[in-house]
């Protein structure tokens, strides 16, 4: 039984942007503030300084959070139009609410990456921070032996997987972020990327979405577009 991913937007009135995202048993909240005043030592003359802060559900910030921060930063930095707001700070805070497993190991950390990334991108969209493109991320497991692919796997699936992959794509299908681990051939990797691209990329507005719906549920790219669309429609409701 898989739990469908859910997302919501703009529920923290004091943050410029906020979003939550849950995938399986992992659930995170992200908030974005900025562009705002920057600390002198972080000030950049030509572009905005991007800060990512990850806060764990239990305990205090450790190396795992630092690692997640650096990975999220590397994925988010290129999609933000930083030159639009020089000498400012754009702060992204990711709060883990619930993670898939209680143990602090590589797999649970891996399962945090995609939801955190999605929540952060949604929060950036909500805040109206100028972006170059929309990134959506997913996790793919490559099973031992059978070579079967599981998109958005559960913790148990990952434990049995030969290799596990976190991938992020722009809505146009460009590969923006990879974190793959395990033992695999390049050909397997190509298959994994194709599977990831399928769920992450989203059809254009006005495209016929029916064909996609038939092929099993809603991809994460579609889901993200849906929640943003709902938010914009709510904002423009007064016109109706």
């Amino acid at each position, binding site marked *: 039984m898989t739990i469908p991913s859910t997302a919501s937007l703009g529920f923290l*009135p*004091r*943050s*410029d942007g906020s979003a939550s995202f849950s995938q399986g048993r992992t659930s995170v909240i992200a908030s974005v*503030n*900025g*562009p*705002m*005043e920057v600390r002198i030592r972080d000030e950049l003359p030509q572009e905005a300084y991007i800060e990512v802060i990850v806060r764990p559900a239990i305990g205090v910030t450790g190396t795992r959070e630092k690692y997640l921060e650096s990975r999220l930063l590397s994925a988010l930095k290129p*999609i933000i*139009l930083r030159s*639009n*707001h*020089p*000498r400012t700070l754009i702060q992204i805070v990711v709060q883990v609410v619930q993670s898939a497993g209680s143990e602090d190991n590589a797999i649970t950390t891996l399962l945090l990456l995609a939801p955190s990334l999605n929540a952060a991108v949604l929060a950036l*969209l909500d*805040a*109206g921070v*100028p*972006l*170059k*493109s*929309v990134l959506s991320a997913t996790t793919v497991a490559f099973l031992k032996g059978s070579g079967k692919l599981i998109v958005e796997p559960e913790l148990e699936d990952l434990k049995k997987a030969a290799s596990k992959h976190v991938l992020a794509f*722009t*809505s*146009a299908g460009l590969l923006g972020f990879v974190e793959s681990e395990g033992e695999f051939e390049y050909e397997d990797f190509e298959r994994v990327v194709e599977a990831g691209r399928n769920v992450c990329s989203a059809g*254009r*507005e*006005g495209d016929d979405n029916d064909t996609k719906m038939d092929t099993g549920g809603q991809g994460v790219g579609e889901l993200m*577009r849906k929640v*943003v*669309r709902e938010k*914009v429609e*709510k*904002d*423009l*409701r*007064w*016109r*109706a």
Partner: protein
Amino acid sequence: MLVFPGDPLPSIPPPPKANTTLKVGPGLTHTPPDNIVVHKAGELNIDERRHALWIEGNGKRYIPSLNDVVIVTVLRSTSDAYICTIPSSISPAPSSTQAMLPHLAFPGATKKTRPQLYPGCTVYARISLANKHMDPELECYDAESQKAEGFGELKGGMVFNVSLGMARRLLGDGKKIRQLRLKQRKVEAEKGGEDLATDDEEISNGMEVLEELGRVLPFEVAVGRNGRVWVDSEEPKVTLCVGRCIQQSEFLTGKEQRALVREALKKL
């Protein structure tokens, strides 16, 4: 039509006159020579007559832009200017953008006649300089007439927060969009060969709440594009009623706004 960052734009209709320049509004970035990129999620608007396109969205963080009217708070005074903060609509916002309001940027001000402002004062001002590389500057007179035209210190009253989109609507931007919509509908209707019975009431301009309140209650109001609305009246009760009605009509249609005001007036 809803667009997302990185989405390609649909083909833009040719300008009505040959030499009209294309105006690119908020949410879009123009990279020379002719590449226009969407960088915000929102509704794409194309005004064929003015040959302009922009993205209509909503937000909370105010980015200063030239000639915007804003409600600011004085932080301190230096030898030749007041340092002000332009708060955004997140209530109560941490100080975000700092702006300079020169002592002489008031109508007919000289060193002796300039108005004295104290830290904490609320001022209605116009942005005279906005540049991403510099702190913005403010002026308290109209750019054309050089007269006060309502700018200056706002004494008494109460400041309420609304979203940036709501502030724009209260300043009448909603009307423009409404007219645009009406015209587009007409064109569509003509294409389809139907006759459109235009009902003026059908499309809201987003500020019915103010119109309705103004009909019954005596109050003063000033709207800043930074998402702040200043309201003053004889009685705090009335001020609060006006402020709350404005805040609550964020997601309401014109009809609902009118109903809301009627309810609130009954209670008052």
